[in-house]
């Protein structure tokens, strides 16, 4: 019995090692959204380009939709942009954009140069709607289910791997 006490530090070390092995592989920047499974926040945004539809929470729901928060000044947005271009060509799921704290002309130029994958774009100059959504960095992508609830949030660019392994399966799942 007294010998057992000498194993205790080893056991403790093992426990702490496991704790760190799991904890240190997590990305601390990947925060869980407080809005998961909640109805999308109330908001109304004017359109980015005059004469086009803007974006409001009443536009969400009915079917599965994706909301992507982007800006032309955001470098990772450029990285995920081709993924969304391909998505909008191959998938009929509506893709809506929230243009976050952007100079209007720059955002318009960015989209006409690279292509516009969005069916609707809300123009959030002040970033207030971003706060309503709990946005803490751009790009962020939300998946909204048929009932208009936020089911998934991805902070950071949607790379092809994330699109293929997370976004597309979830959309298929939610469409059922």
């Amino acid at each position, binding site marked *: 019995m007294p010998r057992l006490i000498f194993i205790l530090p080893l056991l403790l070390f093992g426990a702490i090692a496991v704790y760190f092995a799991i904890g240190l592989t997590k990305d601390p920047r990947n925060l869980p959204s407080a809005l998961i499974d909640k109805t999308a*926040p109330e908001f109304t945004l004017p359109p980015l380009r005059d004469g086009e539809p803007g974006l409001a929470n009443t536009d969400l729901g009915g079917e599965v939709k994706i909301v992507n928060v982007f800006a032309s000044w955001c470098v990772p947005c450029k990285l995920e942009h081709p993924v969304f271009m391909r998505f909008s060509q191959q998938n009929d799921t509506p893709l809506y954009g929230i243009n976050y704290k952007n100079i209007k002309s720059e955002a318009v130029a960015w989209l006409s140069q690279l292509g516009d994958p969005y069916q609707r774009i809300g123009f959030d100059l002040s970033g207030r709607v971003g706060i309503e959504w709990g946005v803490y960095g751009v790009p962020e992508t939300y998946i909204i289910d048929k009932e208009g609830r936020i089911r998934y949030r991805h902070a950071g660019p949607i790379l092809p791997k994330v699109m293929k392994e997370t976004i597309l399966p979830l959309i298929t799942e939610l469409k059922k």
Partner: protein
Amino acid sequence: MRALLICIALILAPLTSANAVLPNEVLKDPLLEKRARALSKNIRCLVCQNQSIDDSNADLARDLRILVRERLTAGDSDTAVLDFLIARYGDFVMLKPPFKGSTYILWFGPVGIFIIAVIGLSVFFRRRQRLIAQGEDLTARLSGDERERLARLLDEDRP
């Protein structure tokens, strides 16, 4: 003497709080501004994570500072402002974790470990005390090898 004073002033300089609040953000009402500052010090900047929005220069921190001041000016209580932010950003937005069911282990964990340690130690010492009181020769529990080593160590201390 003057050089010394300058040295002291320079050493103390970093202690005065360097904060990110811009002059144009400051509210006219000093009482409200004081509340805003106190609140901001406990609100996490989600971009830089271990800085409060009061300290951070990040864009989002500035937006949140202005938002806090707007809500206070509109007559919100301190808790109403915090609840507004928690509803959108989760408990993580507070630098000090809230006291509730899912965080009990965080708050009570260290105290719990301390209590277990104290109980363990007191059991250990009490048992030893009892054995000594019963007149049991504790050295009898040692192996021959250990007894020899103990004798040698005790001998070393003798002049």
